[in-house]
């Protein structure tokens, strides 16, 4: 039942919590709405029940193993949340004078320094509020760099076909033409195609490493050389940074600009689709263009850098310090881990992925890139199973829900047919991984003995199989009081 269906017209209800300050009603009459908004009129208890029920329907990292490839659904430590909720942080006004917010500024400065250090870049700006915004900043800076040099003939960005869809979208948003290059049989970028694609028109290359295929791009040093020799710059999409954090630095791989998804690698919550944070790091050549605000530390005092300090900056992406609360949680996360703990992230993330890969291969699942070691994630293809039995990746994904596991990513990357992209993350125990392997074995057996059971899953969820085609074709998102 929808909360609107519990509503009774003109039911009055007040919160039982006493007001902490007198209500002010100084909105001018001409700005007040003429009719009441369409809101459910329910009791406080019905409201609580509504939200509690919604949370019970949620399949989340707090309730189930969540191996959603490419998303790094790792545990979000409660301590990060508790410390970021200290009243001194919560009550800070974004426009408060710098001398009243030195503690917060110090946290932001140290986060800049730590991210710089762990990625091998020269400087970091924290302001970006999502991975896609990080990309937009990165490519805008590449554009600013070429324009400042009067190099206006560079109109193309090269992107491998394995990239996330946001990469070509970003390049187009920034006014570039996208040159797509293919992947070879082992999952690496086709070097000959890259060499043929670079030209005096090349503004840059966007690369995700490890790639969305779950393998480390072995020829990254050569790629860097080829693109730089053509006069282009290298962009590092940090979507898969969790696999290499602190082990291989994007700066050492030759990247000029990177973004890091704090909501993935640095464990800030993102199960609900946000809010994100994607700081950008740059090499020396792009330093003048970094977006503001940036925190500087001078003679023991922290202060915001502004347009005056950075006249060539591409500008501001938000009114204040991006998603400040998310940045704080990431800062606390890295401080709790320490340098030594940060190295363990990549070690356990790749160990868990390779363990699962080996166990699933033993069961008979086909691995998309069998000659390669997994990064922090890997791909199983159901193509042969589908051809033989009609059971698809989507069927298996739905059946996993019945067994108490969130499904892996399905049908991405697009290069691999009927694929499951599996990313366990470092925060799962071996026992949990083993339970997942048992569930996958059970489903494999069911595909043999009772395929209909798999094809019609889920059976134990609050809702049975949903007609997602009808839902997409006939979108109906608005509750209508007339019924």
């Amino acid at each position: 039942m929808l909360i609107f269906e519990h509503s009774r017209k003109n039911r009055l209800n007040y919160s039982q919590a006493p007001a902490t300050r007198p209500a002010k009603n100084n909105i001018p009459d001409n700005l007040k709405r003429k009719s009441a908004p369409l809101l459910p009129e329910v009791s406080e208890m019905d409201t609580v029940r509504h939200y509690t029920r919604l949370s019970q329907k949620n399949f989340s990292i707090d309730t189930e193993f969540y191996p959603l490839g490419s998303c790094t659904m790792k545990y979000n430590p409660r301590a990060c949340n508790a410390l970021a909720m200290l009243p001194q942080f919560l009550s800070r006004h974004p426009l408060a004078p710098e001398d009243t917010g030195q503690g917060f500024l110090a946290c932001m400065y140290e986060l800049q320094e730590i991210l710089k250090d762990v990625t091998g870049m020269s400087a970091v700006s924290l302001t970006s509020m999502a991975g896609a915004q990080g990309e937009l900043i990165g490519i805008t800076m590449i554009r600013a760099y070429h324009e400042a040099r009067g190099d206006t003939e560079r109109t193309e960005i090269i992107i491998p076909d394995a990239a996330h869809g946001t990469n070509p979208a970003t390049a187009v948003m920034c006014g570039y033409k996208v040159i797509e290059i293919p992947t070879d049989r082992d999952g690496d970028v086709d070097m000959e195609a890259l060499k043929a694609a670079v030209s005096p028109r090349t503004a840059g290359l966007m690369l995700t490493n490890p790639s969305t295929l779950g393998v480390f791009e072995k020829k990254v040093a050569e790629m860097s050389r080829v693109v730089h020799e053509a006069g282009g710059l290298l962009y590092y999409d940090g979507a898969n940074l969790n696999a290499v954090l602190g082990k291989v630095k994007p700066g050492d791989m030759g990247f000029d600009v990177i973004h890091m998804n704090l909501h993935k690698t640095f464990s800030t919550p993102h199960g609900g689709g946000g809010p994100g944070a994607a700081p950008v790091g740059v090499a020396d050549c792009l330093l003048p263009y970094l977006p503001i605000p940036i925190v500087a530390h001078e003679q023991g005092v922290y202060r915001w850098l502004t347009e005056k300090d950075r006249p060539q900056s591409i500008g501001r992406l938000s009114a204040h310090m991006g998603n400040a609360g998310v940045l704080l949680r990431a800062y606390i996360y890295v401080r709790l881990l320490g340098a030594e703990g940060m190295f363990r992230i990549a070690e356990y993330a790749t160990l868990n992925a390779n363990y699962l890969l080996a166990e699933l291969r033993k069961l008979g699942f086909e691995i998309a890139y069998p000659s390669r070691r997994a990064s922090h994630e890997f791909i199983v293809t159901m193509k042969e199973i589908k051809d033989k039995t009609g059971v698809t990746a989507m069927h298996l994904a739905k059946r996993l829900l019945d067994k108490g596991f969130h499904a892996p990513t399905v049908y991405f990357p697009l290069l691999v047919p009927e694929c499951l992209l599996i990313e366990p993350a470092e925060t799962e125990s071996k026992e949990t991984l083993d339970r997942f392997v048992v569930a996958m074995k059970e489903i494999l057996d069911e595909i043999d003995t009772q395929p209909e059971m798999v094809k019609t899953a889920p059976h134990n969820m609050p809702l049975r199989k949903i007609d997602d085609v009808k839902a997409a074709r006939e979108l109906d998102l608005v509750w209508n009081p007339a019924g």
Partner: protein
Amino acid sequence: MSVPAELKYAKSHEWIKLEADGTVTVGITQHAQELLGDMVFVELPKVGRILAQQEDCAVVESVKAASDIYAPLSGEVIAINAEVESSPEKINEDSYSAWLFKLKPANTAEIDGLLDANGYEKLLESDAH
């Protein structure tokens, strides 16, 4: 796999029918619709738009993915199939009758560069390995 002999094909999985009046009709192949799965949305070019060969000019979106459609030949869009916009499932039902748009080719020499049914079948075989 259904690959009608009378049609021409592009490597990007469009089929092209050469009409008697010199225009061409374009759709996506049976293989392409099967890879994409159930269609939920189709966006077609505006009539009158001038397309370059291989320019992305339409979008088909399924429950799995959104995919660009490329102009197999350069030319002017002279008609679109509004029926597939309102009923995208027509493409799944019969991709060879659910055409997307018609073009007036600007350069008939480009037609020679298209694949015939035989060539397209070979492409599908090599993709499968």
